[in-house]
């Protein structure tokens, strides 16, 4: 039996005057996964996600939640962490959580949520007196307050230092383990590869590729590359049976079979001390698909 997707977009478009932000897009997100939406600025990610969230209406097309058109009860079932949101002024972290808790019929226990999102130390602090990482964790807690089936995270770790980002990822992993469906947008390829089960790459209002991150990398890139300083190849050692290209004093060798490539290099007596390995990323996928960088 085919499982009903938790959310579907059917022929969805959004026009702003002459600009088409989202162009006749179909999408289906299975339940219980972390679905990543990637793309450069202006690709239509936020427009698409805000249409799914029912914050803005599509110009054409429709969305379905668990096979049915969106209804008033949809907002009870979803949690949203917006990219840019101010919080209610002159309220402590705890008061903010309890205010939002009162807006829903079903809610998380605030104490449990405080533990989950590591907010215990700042529960009595005012919203405007907390750090960027603490603020992101509070926004995540607000998104979780109603125990949503479907969670939207819009650039959850933007502006966070590596430590705070790791912290955020740990929390998202724990939420995933509870069986929640997560729709995530991000600029960070590492984040998408680390958290997402399925990634959709958007460009100019359309989804241009979709699949598991590893699968996309396999499908749209030519594999791993070995990088060596040109002098390491030395005189008479450059006659390799491997395809190679030279850029700024470095030799790049694309490899299909890493073990065989290393054996070949060692057999030629090449010093591998300064060797580095370049793995293709989703960035490479986007570059190969569009000829542009994701952050252009």
């Amino acid at each position: 039996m085919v499982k009903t997707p938790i959310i579907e977009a059917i022929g969805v478009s959004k026009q702003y005057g002459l600009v088409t932000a989202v162009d006749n897009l179909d999408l289906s997100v299975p339940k219980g996964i972390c679905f990543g939406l990637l793309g450069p600025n202006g690709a239509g990610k936020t427009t698409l996600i805000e249409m799914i969230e029912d914050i803005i209406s599509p110009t054409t097309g429709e969305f379905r939640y668990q096979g049915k058109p969106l209804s008033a009860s949809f907002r009870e079932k979803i949690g949203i962490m917006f990219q840019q949101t101010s919080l209610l002024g002159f309220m402590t972290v705890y008061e903010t959580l309890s205010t939002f808790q009162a807006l829903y019929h079903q809610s998380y226990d605030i104490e449990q949520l405080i533990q989950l999102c590591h907010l215990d130390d700042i529960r009595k602090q005012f919203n405007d007196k907390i750090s960027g990482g603490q603020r992101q964790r509070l926004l995540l807690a607000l998104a979780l307050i109603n125990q949503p089936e479907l969670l939207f995270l819009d650039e959850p770790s933007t502006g966070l230092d590596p430590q705070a980002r790791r912290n955020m990822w740990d929390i998202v992993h724990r939420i995933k383990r509870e069986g929640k469906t997560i729709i995530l947008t991000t600029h960070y390829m590492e984040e998408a590869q680390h958290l997402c089960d399925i990634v959709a790459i958007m460009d100019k209002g359309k989804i241009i590729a979709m699949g598991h991150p590893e699968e996309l990398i396999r499908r749209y890139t030519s594999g791993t590359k070995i990088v060596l300083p040109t002098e390491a190849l030395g005189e008479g050692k450059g006659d390799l049976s491997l395809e190679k290209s030279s850029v700024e004093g470095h030799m790049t060798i694309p490899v299909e079979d890493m073990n065989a490539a290393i054996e070949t290099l060692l057999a030629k007596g090449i010093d591998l001390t300064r060797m580095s390995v370049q793995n293709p990323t989703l960035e490479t996928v986007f570059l190969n698909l569009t000829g542009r960088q994701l952050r252009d």
Partner: protein
Amino acid sequence: MMNFSRMWAIFVSRNREFFRDKAAFGWNLLFPFLIIAGFAIIFGGDERKEFKVGVFPCPSTQGTEIDRCVPPQIELIKQVQYIGFPTQAEGINKLKHHKVDLLIERGKAPLHYWVNDTAPKGYVVEKMIQGALNQRTDDVMVRQEVVSTRPIRYIDWLFPGIIGMNIMFSALYGVGFVVVRYRKNGVLKRLKATPLTAFEYLSAQMLSRLFVIAFSLTILWIGCDLIFDFHVEGSYIDLAIVFMVGNLSLTSLGLIIASRGTSEEFANGLLNFISWPMMFLSEVWFSLEGAPRWVTMVSEMLPLTHLLSGVRKIMNDGAALVDVQVELAVLCGFTLVFLSVGASLFSWNK
């Protein structure tokens, strides 16, 4: 379906914001108090000198020296402040520029005096001095004091105006400006993502504003009453009802400004555009008695006019609710119209 717990949550959060923003809260109370205190100092008290009379030749302009210049026939007249001038030319010049209301030459009777025909006060002070010199007129004035009821001081008339003005600014800015700011910084968008409805949100905003205005009004009233000893001829309950209905209509007007837009500058401009004419045309500071017809017509179209009319009738004239039913009906009508327009225009999004 309306949910009271959601409304209550927003109501409480807005109240917290108001009471915890100590600078804004303090200013909300202090500003009207300062205005009232200022006016009380300038115009208040029994020693108020309503008219200014120049005397020449007199070496000193004011102070105790002037007492020696004032002709004995008129020195006991109250409400007149005497100002001395060394020469007639200087006195005439001041009279011409309305710096004094009448000019008298020292000397033997009959006293010579000059009046500026274009100055309304000049006529009054002329009659007053003539009256003071005439024993029979003096009798008439005494009789008038005996039959008159409690006098309405300017401060008694002004106080409701200042309170009304405070309600107007607090209602318009507290709802209009704040909601536009919330829309701009994304708070509204965050709330839209919850089950909270626009009706619940706007009702909570309005009720919160009603509550905080009622609270600050009570504090202000008690404070001012302790200092200036206001007298309310009518019932305090009637007064509270009129204030509440007026408050509601002004808050609803704030909702129209709050309904759209993200530009705080534009909202501020719009609020100024509404509040300043309302302040001057709703008899906050001065009566529009005798103003051109079109001015009074514009005034009638402003909710603050009806709020102040109702409050002054109760406070100064002892009117009951039935006597201010027209004002109440007009204010309720304004509220319905403003609410309908505000609710139909409202948008959560930018």
